[in-house]
């Protein structure tokens, strides 16, 4: 292999000043490993929260939304060409149910992105046991499909969720409800939906999520039971829950579903605004920390190269006197910066991976969160190296340019 003179000189300078080289590389290494660590932590956390939000929310929820009256609705009554105006429009009450839900489901399933579709009957209810009452909602579902989509099984505290299929009036209640009404598996609970007549149901299981509010209000029943509770027929469905292959496409798919079904399709991004806000805030914090670290590492390189140039000013003069151009001198010093960046980058990757691995073993043990969520994501490592090398080049360029401007005569004349 033929290496250029510039490279040879750059490498000689680096190796004849091992201490400075090591110190500068350590700065870069530190920056890059922190970069990787922080990115892994953030992505891990974000992924965790995203996933845990999907343990109770589907990617897309289709439901019937009340509409505000508008002047188009007058067309049916006033067929002439007069201009229609409507003052003070109000919400129109719509039926809570979806028209022809199973037809809609068949339609939705045609979308290649969609992986799971399941109907649900949501009923606002009052639970009571003895003289104590509690507000909440019953989700009438097919428990097998619900389990496939949301992994209800992992949240089970006691009981068997499949009993919901076997026990006629079975109900699976949250731990909060069970505590407040002091219920156990096998106990009876009275459930009443709005104006409908009360129904006595049997607790077949208790579940607990990490969200207290869900545990204190939500329970699962068979979809037929929920329909009975509301006094509705078998075709009554309030929500259709949809999961898709890539949840980041949810807004797009939701829009498509809205246009083909005519109902409101809410994607998880809309229903989890606070989650997105948290992601954004974390990203800002992270980026400022990384920015500062890289800045410090960059200043380290800048300083060290500046010092090198100060010490080597005579040698730069000799190089220029023997015919090295300004460009060659820039190349010599910029290469030193790049090698420092590469050494620091490689060690930084290894170190960053090490820290990430170590931290991912830290036990947390809160709710379903056992260990600190860390992601091992290759693009982070690539990004880290790119950033590191860019920083070193930026930091090395100014001292290198200064070196190229050295006037050989003034130095050699002494």
């Amino acid at each position, binding site marked *: 292999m033929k290496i250029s003179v510039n490279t040879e000189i750059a490498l000689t300078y680096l190796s004849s000043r091992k201490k400075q080289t090591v110190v500068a590389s350590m700065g870069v290494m530190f920056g890059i490993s922190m970069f990787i660590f922080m990115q892994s932590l953030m992505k891990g956390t974000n992924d965790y929260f995203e996933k845990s939000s999907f343990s109770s929310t589907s990617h897309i929820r289709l439901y019937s939304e009340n509409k505000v009256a508008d002047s188009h609705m007058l067309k049916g009554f006033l067929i002439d060409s007069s201009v229609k105006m409507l003052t003070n429009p109000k919400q129109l009450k719509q039926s809570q149910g979806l028209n022809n839900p199973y037809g809609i489901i068949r339609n939705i399933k045609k979308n290649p992105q969609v992986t799971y579709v399941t109907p649900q009957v949501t009923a606002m209810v009052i639970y009571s046991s003895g003289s104590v009452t509690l507000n909440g909602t019953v989700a009438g579902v097919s428990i097998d499909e619900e389990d496939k989509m949301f992994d209800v099984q992992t949240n089970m505290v006691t009981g068997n969720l499949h009993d919901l299929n076997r026990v006629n009036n079975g109900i699976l209640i949250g731990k909060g409800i069970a505590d407040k009404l002091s219920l156990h598996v096998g106990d009876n609970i009275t459930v009443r939906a709005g104006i409908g007549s009360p129904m006595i149901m049997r607790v077949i299981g208790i579940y607990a999520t990490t969200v207290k509010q869900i545990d204190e209000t939500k329970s699962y029943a068979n979809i037929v039971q929920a329909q009975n509770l509301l006094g509705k027929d078998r075709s009554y469905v309030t929500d259709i829950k949809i999961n898709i292959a890539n949840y980041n496409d949810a807004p797009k798919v939701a829009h498509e579903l809205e246009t083909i079904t005519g109902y409101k399709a809410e994607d998880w991004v809309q229903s989890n605004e606070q989650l997105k806000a948290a992601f954004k805030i974390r990203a800002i914090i992270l980026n400022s920390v990384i920015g500062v670290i890289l800045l410090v590492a960059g200043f380290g390189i800048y300083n060290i190269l500046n010092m090198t140039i100060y010490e080597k000013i005579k040698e730069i003069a000799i190089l*220029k006197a023997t*015919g090295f151009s300004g460009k060659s001198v820039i190349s010599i010093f910029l290469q030193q910066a790049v090698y420092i960046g590469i050494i620091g980058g490689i060690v930084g990757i290894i170190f960053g991976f090490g820290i990430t691995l170590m931290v991912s073993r830290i036990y947390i043990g809160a709710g379903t969160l056992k260990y600190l969520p860390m992601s091992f994501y290759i693009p982070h490592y690539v990004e880290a190296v790119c950033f590191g090398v860019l920083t070193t080049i930026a930091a090395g360029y100014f001292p290198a340019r200064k070196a190229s401007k050295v006037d050989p005569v003034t130095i050699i004349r002494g």
Partner: protein
Amino acid sequence: MENIALKASGITKYFHDPVTFPVLKNIDLEVKQGEFVSIVGKSGCGKSTLLYVLSTMDRDYEGKLEINGKMATGSTLNELAYIRNSSIGFVFQFHYLLPDFSCLKNVMIPGLRLGKLSPKEVEHNAYEKLKMFGVEDLALKQSSKLSGGQQQRVAIARALINDPAIIMGDEPTGNLDSKNTRIVFDLFQQLTKEFHQTIITVTHDDDFAHKSDRIIEMADGEIVK
């Protein structure tokens, strides 16, 4: 007709520290190819200053400088760097080797920079040059660990590596004993006679000066003879 290796006309230079005074006053100088010229004069008369101007390193002067028939005055920094690299070998008054490199590397570096020959060939030539001055045994020694005279000989070897048309020396034998001074002189003479290289050297050694082809005597920034 003999070719002109270097032609300077009306070279005037001022220093401004502490007060503005002329160091070089309207100097005209012509050196033919293959000529061996010695510049002599009292200390402080401006010999080194003139040599820096002639070597294209110093650009802060009035007048015109031609090297090998090409106008150097007004050329860009890159062009001048190339001229120095390919056509001028310079031996400084104080030796000025690169202390981090071996003697061999020091000699090789301008050759590698020029890139006309492969590194292998440059290395071979560098060895040859070191051998001429009897320092080939020191080839792999770090240059900062040499004696003054040894460093000076390595520096002369470096000046010769690209077989430059013009070799300039600022007291190249200042640190050498009489035996080595003679070696350098004989070698310089051989270079001018056999290879038509041009030598311009500042010296305080009268003997050395008198043996050369031409003596240029300076006093107070002017050529007096």
